[in-house]
């Protein structure tokens, strides 16, 4: 425990010394992903098929088949947990969020619209929103006013070999590569928003940029990222 705090403290200090260092950890991850060469031909059909399976599970959930919920859990609980534990930095809370997310998926299965994106996107979006609600509630209690040092501490921990999680690795490489192509200031705004749950106003505070600039960078960054990743967004049928 002690050295975890020490590591955090060091990272925190580093960030202040070097000023604009928020993206460093992400960049480290993005760069490590390049170790694994992409296999573009293979990835798209596999994802399409996998989303069709997910959509079939959602349909069964609409018919009150709880075994489909179990199957969906087996397919996506790991990705979801990885995301929310990373955002929350607390395994107990992350577990709660995973449970709440799948429960919401069960209750709201009929509101899923395949035309708006893949089932996994839908699940991760619900889970991230629930995690952000908790993060923001804590911030309101002033426990963790911005919480931006956390992401550095976590991501600076020894990275995993991306090839280890087979089902996500190709996609991961593509996403990392696309993010790497963005201008640094656009990437930073997206990272602070997505991984740290900062609002545009908070990002403006943290980066010392006017709110209008933050808004523009966020929109441009998203639009640029969208093109290379369009085939991954899981539109079905």
């Amino acid at each position: 425990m002690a050295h975890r705090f020490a590591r955090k403290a060091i990272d925190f200090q580093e960030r202040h010394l070097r000023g604009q260092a928020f993206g460093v950890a992400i960049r480290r991850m993005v760069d490590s992903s390049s170790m694994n060469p992409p296999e573009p031909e293979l990835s798209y059909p596999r994802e399409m098929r996998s989303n069709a399976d997910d959509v079939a599970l959602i349909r069964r959930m609409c018919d009150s088949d709880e075994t489909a919920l179990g199957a969906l859990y087996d397919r996506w609980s790991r990705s979801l947990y990885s995301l929310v534990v990373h955002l929350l930095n607390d395994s107990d809370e992350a577990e709660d969020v995973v449970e709440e997310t799948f429960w919401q998926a069960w209750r709201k299965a009929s509101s899923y619209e395949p035309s708006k994106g893949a089932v996994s996107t839908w699940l991760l979006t619900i889970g991230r929103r629930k995690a952000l609600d908790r993060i923001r509630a804590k911030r309101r209690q002033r426990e963790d006013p911005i919480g931006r040092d956390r992401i550095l501490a976590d991501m600076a921990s020894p990275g995993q070999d991306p090839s280890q999680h087979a089902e996500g690795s190709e996609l991961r490489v593509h996403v990392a590569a696309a993010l790497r192509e963005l201008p640094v200031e656009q990437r930073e705004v997206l990272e602070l928003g997505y991984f740290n749950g900062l609002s545009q106003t908070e990002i403006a505070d943290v980066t010392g940029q006017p709110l209008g600039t933050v808004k523009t960078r966020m929109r441009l960054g998203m639009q640029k990222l969208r093109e290379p990743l369009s085939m991954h967004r899981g539109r079905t049928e």
Partner: protein
Amino acid sequence: MTELSHEEAYSELAAVALDAGQVEIADAVRAHASVCPECGPELASMEATMALLGQLVPHSEMSPGRSAGVRSRLIVRAGSERKARAASGRKPDLLHGVASLAGQGHRVSPTSSQAAAPEARMQQPVRPIRQPGNERGPASRTNWLAIAATLLLAAASAQLFRVTADRNAMRDQLAARGGDATRADSLAASLAESNALVAAMTGSDVKVVSLASESARQPQAQMFWNRASDDWTMIASGLPSLKPGRTYQVWLVTDSAKISAGTFEPDARGRTVLRAKYALDRNALRAVAITDEPAGGVPAPTGAMVIVGAATP
């Protein structure tokens, strides 16, 4: 809700896609996007693109035991909801006998203890649930032992959570302690414990009883009864913290007896994992209940019933 023009809504799409804008405006933007042929698809594609960033986080996993617990809770809850829906408003019939757990309490008479005896086959060396040193009358002791004799409490609540929980914290503790032998032993022990837990909770012969209160979502619990191995594993959450001098006690309710499955105190977050070994006739279980009792436990329920679940045949 304010109605936004196309331009106003369009300029906020990125903020909404990332949940990074003002909450009050987000609803108005979504309302506009749901009818605007340009903003709708734009927002959807932005959200889908942002969701892909989730691929970049380091891979983490719940421990198998905890993940199995979440999965089971979800399925049990979904299943009960489906049944409730199918029964179209008919209230679940909480069993006769369970009702008497609440209120004035119900003492197990010598007769009912005897009646319970045939189904309570001795499986394991006896470990009395009550802590030594607690004062109690000889009469109640006899009753208590008659009922509790075949129970073996395997693990005390919160510790199991701690063992199977945060791998990072564990890794840090191990690293701080140093020593590869310690590390390997602890990891092996933790893994073995997780595996044992999963084995006890899964399999074709596992019966699940879901415990809840009538009014609130929390507290709740699931009892997994592995009828092949006589393992009982209960996972509970949302339990209020106890007053000093009190304990929670778990009861297996049959037609003829209320059998204590042990006492526990939940962790700081109101959760517990309780494990017991007990051979019960495979059709005898009627309900599982948790009551609030004096510290050390009692031979028969006396306190308020916190949550209860009926066992379907």
